[in-house]
């Protein structure tokens, strides 16, 4: 198989340009709005940032997962997933505004001396949750993720050329296991720094897993939507089969259940303990206007997708599965809204920036993703399982 045969279709370039235009326009609009209300800007920015971060890091997790499990579904999504991981430099750039300007609007509870005087941090937190510590740790997280991303992408590129390299396959597997642990650990710490510290007097040990579970849902959904779109054009037309979609749908279902399991475990433990220090998280989120958002997340992020994804027929239908997937990405945004915003306001009515900023960051991210997608063949041509993975044996 020649590399040229499997390059991305022309429409990817058009998409890249369009996404860049929309993203840039939305970003300019959002910045103009941000000059007037910077606090609102950074609250919306953090939520949007967590969404695109999830798409990127979740894909990194899935790349490593498919190296470990070696399923046919993994070969189909591997290149889109790798392209998504290569947006990581952009994700690092997106972090800069938070680090430079946004921190004082977001993390006032542990940065503002006045607030600290009223509610002092615990002994360990005083040393851990500091401005410098936050920045140093962010650099470490990005260093680890970028290293994993570069290694997996470089090896994958080498495999396209050296199709018979057995050592390369072994290396993928050797690094994928520890890599997944590094990703989950790193993201757990990052979730504590970036999200959980919005309410520094509250802590939950499962928080990082909830965030990782959400990232896996959004990235799996995104990759399903991408391969279904790509399958409309050559060269992937005819490659994507119902059995691949079936497997991806099953995986998506399991991620939805995993995330719900983590989220519910936290609720159950805190609800059972009923301790003043712990229940603050749910006091703000399960009462008043936020109760409505909680119900939306529970019903439309879990129950509806769960029952739809149980059906074998729906999982095997590309159009239906990709719609469920896109719906779940939207629900991720609602869940992130519910996770972050109640720390700032009791009003669950979104600001206009909550619509413009996801479009801005999402548009630019998608544009970079499309750019990456064009850099390599859409299928891992050196993977020894490729022929088997794209073979048709449905009579």
């Amino acid at each position: 198989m020649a590399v040229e045969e499997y390059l991305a279709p022309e429409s990817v370039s058009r998409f890249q340009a369009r996404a860049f235009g929309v993203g840039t326009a939305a970003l300019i609009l959002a910045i103009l709005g941000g000059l007037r209300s910077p606090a609102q800007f950074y609250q919306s920015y953090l939520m949007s940032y967590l969404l695109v971060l999830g798409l990127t890091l979740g894909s990194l997790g899935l790349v490593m997962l498919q190296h470990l499990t070696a399923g046919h579904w993994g070969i189909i999504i591997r290149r889109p997933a790798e392209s998504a991981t290569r947006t990581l430099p952009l994700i690092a750039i997106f972090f800069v505004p938070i680090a430079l300007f946004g921190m004082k609007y977001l993390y006032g509870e542990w940065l503002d001396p006045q607030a600290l005087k009223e509610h002092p941090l615990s002994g360990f937190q005083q040393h851990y949750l500091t401005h410098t510590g936050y920045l140093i740790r962010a650099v470490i997280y990005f260093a680890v993720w970028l290293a994993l991303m570069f290694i997996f992408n470089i090896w994958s590129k080498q495999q396209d050329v050296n199709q018979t390299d057995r050592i390369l396959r072994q290396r993928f597997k050797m690094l994928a296991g520890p890599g997944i642990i590094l990703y989950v650990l790193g993201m757990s710490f990052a979730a504590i720094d970036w999200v959980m510290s919005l309410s520094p007097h509250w802590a939950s040990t499962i928080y990082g897993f909830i965030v990782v579970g959400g990232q896996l849902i959004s990235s799996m959904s995104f990759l399903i939507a991408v391969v279904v779109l790509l399958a409309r054009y050559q060269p992937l037309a005819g490659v994507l089969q119902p059995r691949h979609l079936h497997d991806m749908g099953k995986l998506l279902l399991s991620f939805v259940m995993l995330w719900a399991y983590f989220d519910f475990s936290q609720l159950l433990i805190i609800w059972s303990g009923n301790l003043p220090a712990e229940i603050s998280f749910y006091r703000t989120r399960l009462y008043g206007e936020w109760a409505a958002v909680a119900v939306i997340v529970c019903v439309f992020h879990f129950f509806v997708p769960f029952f739809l994804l149980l059906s074998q027929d729906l999982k095997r239908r590309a159009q239906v599965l990709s719609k469920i997937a896109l719906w779940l990405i939207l629900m991720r945004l609602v869940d992130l809204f519910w996770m972050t915003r109640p720390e700032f306001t009791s009003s669950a009515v979104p600001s206009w920036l909550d619509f413009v900023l996801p479009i801005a960051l999402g548009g630019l991210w998608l544009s970079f993703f499309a750019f990456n997608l064009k850099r390599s063949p859409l299928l891992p041509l050196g993977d020894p399982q490729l022929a088997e993975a794209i073979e048709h044996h449905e009579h």
Partner: protein
Amino acid sequence: MEQRSHIYGVMAEFDTPEKLIHATERARAEGYRRMDAYTPFPVEGLSEAMGLKRNMVPLITLIGGLFGGLSAFFFQWWANVLSYPEDIGGRPLNSWPAFIPVTFELTVLGAALSCVFGMLALNHLPQPHHPVFNVKRFVHASADRFYLCVEARDPKFHLADTARFLQGLHARHVSEVPDD
């Protein structure tokens, strides 16, 4: 009519899964419906060639799961609210979050058990004996031969004609399967 009480069907033996699939497709096209294939390993595409419709196992599993979950929740609610109301740490009697883990576990249990036993029941298992074992050569079905058996209860079945038809499909061997 007379022959049907003595004969279970006619069985053809094939060398390769491809020949079996081909023969099955031809037999279906010919109008035979009551037939079954026997292979030493799962053969991809055989179910489609036999025109097997989706079975009831998923539905049975769903019903079993729902029954397990609902009964678990109901039982906990009944025990805590009606049968033995007890104030535990000031929590409401209907402490539904605490009921969820058991509800979840019994959903899984109900779904898994009904899936396995539903599958066994639909397959008429356990079945100590089956007429196909009356054919001596059938021992190869667990090694390297592939069998298609057209059963006598098929309306189109005719001992001589069906045997001739199967012979024409590159069968290695065609045997009558006596029904005892």
